[in-house]
């Protein structure tokens, strides 16, 4: 249905962002928390809008922006992730001296870019959204201006990100040249009518994959991830590990859903993705073994998770992909929340050594962090297990047994480094006394909500699965 309503989530977020940017001028630095409340309330409204629009299928701009169930689902979880990140940041930014007004404005702006990305199937519009996301992200990564690491992160992210963008534009041009359109569906249909894919189109598709591969951080386009994750303020790292990744996979879903149906010349692209996926799982997990910095461990773990998600793309199972992303949101943000919890004024505890004895000193942080780590490692009865389970089942059904074996062995490797964090928390005597700022209600709210999400999705995910099935079924309507 053609309606102006299709723009409302986007407009709400952009409006909130601009409002925050203006109000910021009038607020003193200690009172910046009001901006957080303001942003949160707008995000809540946006979430409600998403729920209200379910099954409505609004679209606008000649169908270039639309809200089918899939976009709504993605917008909802992305808004949720951003809300979590804002809750995590409230105390953090004043403790770590990054409480600039731009913080929330940039976060919302990045979110608006993602919203554009997930609610379009025109590659040009997607490119627009991607740029909005990327430019805000570069700024966010470098927000701790007094910290060299943060600036390094911003520059690295910017340089490599620009490369990726250039790849996308180049690929887009080639695709446009070979098919005469930038709309994914049209492109794939044109390809479908030809007997074999021209080299130009193949290169174009490959370049698009490379560019999104950068966004979702798969091997070998992952080099930026650990440095950027380490340098950026921790809540922003949580944001990077979830939001761009989810958006990137939403796009891949939209590209490959019609593509597999056409399945022309799929050998080349299929094996490309197969190799990337296997490499990502193995390299991500192997390198994580050697890390001692929590943020870097989580960075490599998020790379590895992108590998599992690619398995879902190869298995052509959309609902398991979306389910995995949902679970991943809760467990990863939860893990970062626990990392953020262990900080005090001007100091973050990020080395493994710092975690010695934490489990018994701060039992709630210890328990929740352990549960998130078990979930990331894929132990039942957490959501992480079920998510991996659905993906691997789908893959075996598609006959991808070797890839699944690589996947489970890679996740065996991951068990080691996730458990190592728990070893430090519970089984090592502390070498130093660590003190943390305990009073952080918003952070504990996030911990609790993520815990709830991980366990609910692990034990009784049926309602969510029904929603997800509705969401992905809107793919086939296009």
């Amino acid at each position, binding site marked *: 249905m053609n309606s102006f309503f299709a723009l409302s989530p986007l407009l709400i977020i952009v409006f909130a962002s601009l409002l925050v940017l203006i109000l910021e001028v009038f607020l003193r630095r200690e009172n910046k928390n009001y901006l957080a409340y303001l942003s949160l309330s707008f995000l809540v409204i946006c979430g409600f809008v998403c729920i209200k629009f379910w099954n409505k299928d609004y679209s606008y701009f000649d169908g270039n922006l639309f809200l089918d169930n899939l976009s709504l689902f993605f917008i909802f979880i992305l808004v949720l992730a951003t809300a979590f990140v804002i809750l995590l940041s409230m105390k953090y930014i004043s403790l770590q001296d990054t409480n600039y007004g731009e913080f929330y404005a940039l976060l919302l702006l990045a979110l608006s870019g993602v919203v554009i990305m997930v609610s379009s199937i025109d590659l040009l519009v997607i490119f627009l959204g991607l740029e909005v996301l990327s430019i805000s992200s570069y700024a966010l990564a470098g927000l701790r201006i007094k910290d060299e690491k943060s600036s390094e992160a911003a520059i690295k992210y910017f340089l490599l990100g620009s490369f990726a963008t250039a790849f996308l534009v180049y690929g887009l041009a080639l695709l446009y040249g070979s098919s005469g359109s930038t709309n994914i569906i049209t492109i794939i249909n044109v390809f479908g009518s030809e007997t074999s894919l021209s080299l130009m189109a193949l290169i174009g598709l490959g370049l698009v994959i490379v560019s999104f591969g950068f966004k979702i951080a798969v091997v070998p386009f992952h080099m930026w991830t650990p440095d950027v994750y380490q340098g950026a303020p921790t809540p922003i790292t949580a944001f990077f590990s979830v939001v761009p990744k989810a958006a990137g996979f939403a796009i891949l879903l939209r590209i490959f859903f019609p593509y597999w149906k056409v399945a022309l010349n799929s050998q080349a692209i299929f094996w490309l993705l197969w190799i990337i996926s296997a490499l990502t799982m193995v390299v991500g997990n192997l390198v994580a073994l050697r890390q001692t910095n929590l943020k870097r461990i989580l960075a490599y773990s998020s790379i590895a998770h992108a590998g599992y998600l690619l398995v879902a793309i190869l298995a052509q199972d959309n609902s398991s992909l979306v389910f995995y992303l949902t679970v991943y949101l809760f467990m990863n943000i939860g893990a970062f929340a626990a990392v953020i919890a262990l900080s005090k004024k001007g100091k973050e505890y990020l080395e493994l050594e710092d975690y010695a004895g934490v489990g018994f000193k701060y039992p709630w942080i210890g328990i929740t962090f352990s549960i998130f780590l078990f979930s990331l490692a894929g132990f039942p009865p957490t959501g992480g297990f079920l998510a991996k389970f659905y993906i691997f089942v789908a893959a075996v059904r598609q006959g991808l047994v070797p890839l699944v074996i690589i996947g489970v062995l890679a996740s065996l490797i991951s068990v080691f480094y996730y458990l190592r964090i728990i070893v430090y928390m*519970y089984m090592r005597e502390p070498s130093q006394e660590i003190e943390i700022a305990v009073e952080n209600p918003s952070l504990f709210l996030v911990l609790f909500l993520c815990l709830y999400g991980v366990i609910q999705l692990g034990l009784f995910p049926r309602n969510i699965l029904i929603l997800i099935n509705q969401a992905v079924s809107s793919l086939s309507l296009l």
Partner: protein
Amino acid sequence: MNFPILSLITFLPLAGAILLIFIQRGRENILRFLSLGTALITFIFSLILYFSFNAQIPDPQFVEKVEWLGYGINYHIGIDGISLFLVLLTTFLMPIAILSSWTHIQKRVKEYLIFILMLETGIIGIFVSLNLFLFYVFWEAMLIPMYFLIGVWGGRRRIYATLKFVLFTMLGSLLMLVAIFFLYSMYYKATGVYSFNLFDYYKLILNPNIQIWLFLAFALSFAIKIPLFPFHTWLPDAHVEAPTAVSVILAAVLLKMGAYGFLRFALPLFPDAVMKFLPLLAVLSLIGIIYGGLMALIQKDAKSLVAYSSVSHMGLIMLAIFALNFEAMEGAIYQMISHGLSTGALFLIVGILYERSHTRMIKDFGGVSKQMPVFSAFFLICMLSSVGLPGLNGFIGEILCFFGIFKANKLLAILGISTVILAAGYLLWMFQRIMQGPIKNEKIFSFKDINKREICYLVPIVIMMFWMGIYPKPFLRKMDSSVTHLLNRVNKREIYFTEVQKDKNLPVKIEHEMTKEKNEEKEDKSR
């Protein structure tokens, strides 16, 4: 039966664990009594299970089935004559484990008890699951409490031991998971229905070439757990580092999970592959018997001696299972329970010694029986039960095993008998070095004889040892029909095997027509 007694038994410990969370850390005695109470109530309920169990029915009883996640993932539990005794063994040993760690565990009592109770739920869950997904969930979830129990309350090299334990187990179980996926998709291809139900899978007739791979994946997982010979290296580490109660559970119940896995999954699901790998598996078991026994002989640490004796004894159990006949199978199951009791008791004995001396080295002891006469009697009985003295539990199990193995293969039986000889060697020698002779170490003069609490948890075990040794009928008759059924399932396939062979391209077939034929046969007979 409408009352969900099996769920109650499974989740009561977990409920107890949740209750413990809300009790203050300092009130350690309340915590201990509460967890002991939970474990005891669970045991009493499981006795109801024993008495209302109908021995005539080979199929699972007390079945509960609730749809859980869809796509064939159901909450489906039940027990038959094989799992009944393993559940009973678990519930019987848990209160004993808690009692044995009453004073032994002084730090972080609350967390310790919570994990012990969680572990109980996990173990019982494994034995009652009839849905492969549910089974796998329990199988993996059980690792988490075990990981903490060894890692936090263990000895000096606990972190190494616990990580080794978890990674070894996961290596096997993840490959098993892939095999389960494969079965799942095969079943879907054959019937168009999603199912993780074990009994649906029993109906599958798989192409032998596929069976080989699936069997290897399952067998690896279980072989690590048992542990079969080349996969046993985690066991001595885990045992030596774990606290006493955890060693008891590990030896008595966790190792049985592997054997149970063979009985429940690997043998009936992949009979053709079993036939193919039978010689290899039997030889590995035999190597385990001899190697475990020889290693036990040279151990300096009493606890690792008992650990290696487990390797040897589990080898015998596996050899009996692979004999694939009625006597051996019953003997194996009987021996599983009896090994649980006697090895569990030996770990308790070593634990009692350790609590007094803070050493486990055999050379530090000598002449202890003069200071601890009552303890000495208990030690003697437990040791003899492990050796297999007639009149005690070990004898019945071993003799049944050997009957069966002898029937299957004489050479294996003759070589396998070395387990008894070796056991007599290393256990009697250990007893002699620890309990008898002059007192060399001055510390021993200060040893007090075992107290009421310790007698309290050793007496039930000793009673069971005598009972199982003198009057095994109530145990054996309850498992008869299930064992017969299982053997039918394994052997029956050979008859249909030829039919599948004719059509080599067919990867999978469902048993449909065959069950029909069988029913007709039955009808014919009844006429």
